């Protein structure tokens, strides 16, 4: 036990505390609150906003997709073979992030990607005699190396994560509740609105928060996809480590501390909601 605690103390707590202390010091080592001002810096503010935006969009979209897919393979009675493939593939996809994921999407939706080429090839001759290719997605303004492209890419691990975390809750809905609702003349909509959703919402919210946190902390996928041209907070921290782009190391620590605060709020929220869920799952 003691070696473990010592290991954690030296290699996890000490580095984190070091950043924490650095965030409240000026460059001479005196205590100051001035570094909080870094969040008023245009670049920093923008990076936080983009990170929050990407995390929010992918957690909501991923959450909705994941929920309906989990519904489809549990209560929706999709064919068993589909259920098996989706469940085991979710485990794979949720673990498949980082650089290879970015490469896969470049090969699929990049300028010369597989899908891009297929869409581009759908052409026909218009009445006026000219060639029209309405599905040339890059012509239509799509760009994989943008926030939209990053969102599509993140979704690849986001919705499987939702499937994995929400499926146990859906499986925990008792058949008697549905039967009771039907016996009392309730329609499907009644059942969902008055019974299932009120029971499920803590786990839906909790899982979405988990998705949010997983997108917020992601670095490698964005770096490999866009070469750092989308200013996520993680990318900015990376640049700060490389070359002190803020011209003030202590502001860099404050920048990093801000991330930890947001992540901590997320994980605490998730844990509390999960506790609520496990209470009724057990009963």
């Amino acid at each position: 036990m003691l070696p473990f605690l010592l290991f954690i103390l030296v290699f996890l707590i000490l580095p984190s505390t070091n950043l924490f202390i650095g965030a409240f010091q000026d460059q001479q080592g005196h205590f100051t609150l001035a570094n909080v001002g870094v969040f008023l810096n245009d670049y920093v503010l923008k990076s936080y906003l983009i990170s929050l935006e990407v995390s929010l969009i992918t957690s909501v979209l991923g959450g909705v997709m994941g929920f309906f897919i989990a519904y489809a393979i549990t209560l929706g009675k999709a064919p068993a073979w589909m259920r098996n493939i989706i469940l085991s593939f979710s485990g794979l996809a949720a673990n498949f992030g980082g650089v290879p994921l970015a490469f896969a999407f470049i090969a699929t939706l990049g300028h010369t990607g597989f899908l891009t080429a297929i869409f581009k090839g759908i052409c026909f001759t218009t009445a006026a005699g000219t060639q029209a290719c309405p599905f040339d997605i890059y012509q239509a303004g799509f760009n994989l190396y943008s926030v939209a492209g990053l969102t599509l890419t993140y979704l690849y691990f986001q919705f499987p994560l939702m499937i994995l975390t929400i499926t146990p809750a859906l499986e925990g809905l008792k058949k008697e509740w549905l039967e009771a609702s039907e016996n009392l003349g309730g329609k499907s909509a009644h059942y969902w609105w008055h019974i299932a959703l009120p029971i499920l919402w803590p786990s839906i919210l909790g899982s979405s928060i988990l998705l949010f946190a997983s997108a917020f902390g992601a670095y490698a996928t964005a770096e490999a996809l866009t070469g750092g041209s989308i200013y996520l907070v993680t990318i900015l921290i990376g640049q700060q480590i490389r070359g002190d782009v803020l011209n003030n190391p202590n502001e860099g620590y404050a920048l990093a501390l801000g991330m930890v605060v947001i992540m901590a709020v997320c994980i605490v929220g998730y844990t509390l909601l999960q506790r609520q869920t496990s209470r009724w799952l057990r009963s």
Partner: protein
Amino acid sequence: MKTKKANLWALFWAILALLYFFVPLYGTLDFSLRMQRGKLSLMAYKLVLSDPQFLASFRYSATMGLITIIVSVLIFLPTIYWMYLKVPQARPVVEIITILPFIIPVIVFTFGLIRTFSGPPFQLTVTPFRTDILITIGYVIISMPYMYRAIDVGMRSIDVRGLTEAAQSLGSNWLQILFRVIFPNLRFAILSGALICFATVIGELILGDFLVRPALGPYMVQVGRDSAYQPAAMAMLSWGLTWICLGIIQLFGRGNISRQITGR
């Protein structure tokens, strides 16, 4: 839900999921085979696999993965065993500690490591060997949630106290109990933790990149900047590797993980 048949709404979502899973997978496969104009070939794979830098970085990351596994088991196995046997009240604290790597993003953690250990008195980044020590520690921490969970699940399924008492009454010392009684009983749990650990280290970018070590992640990013088809081939290869790791876990996990092999 009165009928046994799938409804269209459910089918729609299930099919959407399958498309989202398999179109990029197929697209990547197709793309990776088109390096030579006009025909399908394995040229991109040949180029990747014959690149000495790829082999070197793969060997580095694989070695680091194995070292990380050994260090992790040496740290976590005795700790969790001790927790089960003597200090069960420490569990909530240990659980919070083991999810800390989820709260502190890897990039922030790396930032802290560099700030703390690159300067005096530690100076752990001055030579490659010292940096390797630091990077191993980093990998151990990053994969800690998975390793802890795997061993914890395994430990829960065996009778720790009974096994310990039986071994003690036969005259075993602590080392023998740990590595000849507890370890064999947890071999599937440890194997699954080890495989996830390995997959994590192999795919890791941030630590290798910022500590400037020749790991696979930074190498892949570099190739991604320089060439078009090799990245797709590497994505397929790493896909296959992840698949194999998770496949082995599922294979052994099926019922075996909860089976105690001795003493029951």
